[in-house]
């Protein structure tokens, strides 16, 4: 009975014969899917513009009855110094992206184009390293950073972030490198380019779309990173925005108006990037796991 129902339903979904029933079912499923994806973010935004009387009420209207923008205009800047957290976030994600693109462009070249013995083994080892959970190297790293005085500085997040995300970025980059024809490089070498010139002036520009994809992906993933920033940063001096917000939200008194408004503000840059460059991001996401 149930199996029959499933069969019927799957028939409906897969057939696509253009009947009216099929179309209705299709769009209902699509809207369920989109609703589940967007509702939490919608709710976050709606909570941030509610006045406290509605925010802390047992009755939650799906569309707020009145609007209070004071968290955005004054509160998060005055009571939270939110600009400081945003700056930290930009510094950390920006530097990590630059490091990953530089190191990854060199290593990706080797993996994607050069003929090297044992290349596959090195690649798999590197990929394997990034698959271990972060706790497996957490404490020695913590010890090392505290000895070097790096705790609670931006570097304490930039270094682990770039090391941990590099393998994935390298795998994605080498896939882009592979698509460039070998002859171009040879031609450049015959023309009298040195190795470094051939790499920087011929290959890297051709792989630029790949760099943009990987760069955007890395930026977003570092911006969203939680583990290292939660454990290696303790004060406003180095905490990125999501961690700052989290620390505000777990206290005894939970200022939800501040927290939600700050969350929305910290998500704006990322949502902008997604709207402008979703094609590149999807290409990067898919490329990294195609292999």
């Amino acid at each position: 009975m149930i199996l029959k129902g499933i069969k019927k339903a799957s028939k409906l979904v897969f057939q696509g014969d253009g009947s009216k029933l099929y179309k209705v079912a299709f769009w209902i499923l699509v809207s369920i899917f989109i609703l589940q994806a967007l509702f939490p973010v919608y709710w976050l935004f709606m909570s941030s513009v509610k006045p406290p009387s509605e925010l802390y009420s047992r009755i939650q209207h799906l569309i707020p009855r009145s609007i209070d923008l004071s968290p955005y205009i004054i509160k998060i800047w005055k009571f939270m110094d939110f600009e400081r957290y945003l700056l930290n976030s930009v510094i950390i994600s920006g530097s990590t992206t630059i490091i990953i693109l530089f190191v990854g462009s060199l290593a990706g070249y080797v993996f994607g184009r050069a003929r090297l013995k044992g290349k596959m083994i090195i690649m798999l080892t590197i990929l394997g390293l990034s698959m271990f959970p972060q706790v497996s190297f957490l404490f020695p790293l913590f010890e090392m950073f505290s000895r070097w005085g790096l705790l609670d500085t931006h570097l304490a997040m930039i270094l682990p972030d770039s090391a941990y995300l590099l393998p994935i970025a390298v795998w994605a980059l080498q896939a882009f490198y592979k698509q460039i024809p070998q002859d171009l490089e040879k031609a450049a070498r015959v023309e009298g380019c040195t190795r470094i010139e051939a790499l920087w002036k011929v290959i890297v520009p051709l792989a630029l779309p790949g760099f943009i994809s990987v760069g955007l992906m890395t930026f977003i993933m570092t911006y969203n990173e939680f583990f290292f920033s939660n454990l290696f940063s303790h004060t406003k001096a180095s905490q990125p925005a999501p961690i700052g917000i989290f620390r505000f939200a777990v206290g005894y008194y939970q200022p939800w108006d501040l927290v939600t408004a700050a969350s929305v503000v910290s998500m704006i840059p990322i949502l902008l990037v997604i709207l402008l460059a979703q094609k590149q991001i999807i290409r990067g996401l898919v490329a990294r796991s195609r292999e």
Partner: protein
Amino acid sequence: MVKGRNSPGKLRTVSLGLFINGIRGIPGKFSLWVERLSEGHFCLLLLSPLILLLTVIIGIPLLRTIWVSFHQYAPTKPWLEYKFTGLANYISLLTDPIFFAALLHSFYFTVLNIVFMLLFAMMGAFLASKQTKGKAIIRTALLVPWATPIAIAGITFKLMYSSEYGVINYLLKSAGFIEEYIPWLLSYSHVFNWMYSAVAMNAVIVAAVWRNIPISTLLLLAALESIPSEYYKVAKVNGANTWQIFRHITLPLIMPAITVVVLWRAITAMRIYGIIETMTGGGPGRLTETLQLLTIRTFFTEKNIGKGSAIATMTMIFTFLIILAYLVFIQYMEKRRK
């Protein structure tokens, strides 16, 4: 002697000039030096930043964790240094019910996470592959959960689950499903321990699944789109019905992608931390405490470095087994492709 000829100012200018000339020569010399390298050495040179970074940040600390797991160390008494204790940490671990509880939580989390994520991801991928209009909308909508920072996703779900002003409670009550507001993330039941633990855990899993659906959907969608449409046409001409087409053409062809998604999710579920830490912090009690949270609590709250390292090493072994399965599978696929 003309005064000022050898004045420090001029000396500084001269040496600065020499210095700049020296620097200017470096790229040329460096590039000449690179030209003389053999192919293999050139590759090593390009790889050296990657290898350096990975060794210092991941490789050495990884080995040190294993080493420390056989020692005892108290950060509050640094003069005691690391004392070799053999397998003591592992023995205390294997007699510790908290460790097994965390193991069980991790396992429960991983399985449910994968099942529900796969269900939704398959649905999303099929929907998106059917129509171009639906695809564009779904793709854009999908990137939003993926781009939500973990901490903010956790906080948002915490707000939605709130027992006093949570929208989930409000909606369920106005729809008549529940009588009283349920404190989802703090739920208690004295009868069955595991049942009670499941309420908070399931609430966390919902949030984790929400954040994991996008990437799996995009991967499955890419696999679906790479199936040539001729296959479907031939099957239809030969009179196959939709279920048969799905069962005998689509499913075998996207099976590799499904396996990759499942294994990838299994590996990342081993390191789940952010969403649980932000939503419950391992609570209520220790009922949502997974292996990662237990390790961090042992390190930083109990300050028992040896035992924490032992748990971390165990986690490493579990992950290694999954990675091994992943690699074997990749090799198998390579062979089959050839």
